[in-house]
């Protein structure tokens, strides 16, 4: 299980390959990458991600350990950045490996749902109109109910 909380840019493809090479005996690898999405008007200048050093790592480790307990997984990877990010840049990724695809998919979705609402990150967007904190979505909180 590898957990990285860092401000540095990372390479999702290189991370996927490294994760897959280490996943011996696993038939299925699922990855999710979150990208800073330009808004419809094209006015997003930057995204700043604040986090709670110390708690972030603990919260992610707890979520990942829960995933490993619930599903038949080989391994799990979580990378999450903080700091100033540009539109198009990767924000975070998760990857899971498992003997079978259903476990890999379910665990990756579980990790994402919990990271969204239970890991202490906050997004602030700067657009040409000004800046503001991204509001949490009711649907993200509701997504936790299925687990």
């Amino acid at each position: 299980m590898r957990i990285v909380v860092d401000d540095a840019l990372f390479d999702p493809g290189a991370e996927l390959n490294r994760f897959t090479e280490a996943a011996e005996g696993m038939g299925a690898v699922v990855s999710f990458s979150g990208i800073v999405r330009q808004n419809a008007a094209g006015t997003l200048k930057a995204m700043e991600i604040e986090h709670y050093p110390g708690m972030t790592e603990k919260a992610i480790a707890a979520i990942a350990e829960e995933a490993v307990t619930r599903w038949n997984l080989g391994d799990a990877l979580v990378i999450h950045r903080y700091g100033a990010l540009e539109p198009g840049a990767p924000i975070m990724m998760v990857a899971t490996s498992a003997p079978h695809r259903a476990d890999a998919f379910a665990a990756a979705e579980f990790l994402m749902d919990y990271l969204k609402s239970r890991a202490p990150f906050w997004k602030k967007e700067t657009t040409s109109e000004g800046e503001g904190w991204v509001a949490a979505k009711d649907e993200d909180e509701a997504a936790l109910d299925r687990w």
Partner: protein
Amino acid sequence: MMDVLYFAWVRERIGLPKERVETRAATVSELVAELSAREERYALAFSDLTALRVALDQELSDFDAPLEGVREVAFFPPMTGG
């Protein structure tokens, strides 16, 4: 004495990321009431507790939780990671 941390717009409204607080508050709610009584900026930040989350010693908790033995309290809006 405990460390009180603020994140995101809570940090911006209160105007600082962290402070040492001398308190005899027994619960998180009591601490919130003490801080809100201090100054307008605290009262403003804590005006709607449903929009806030609290962590005690880096574990998510709630406003009824006791503070005994707690060394670090953090207030912040709902998380928006991922």
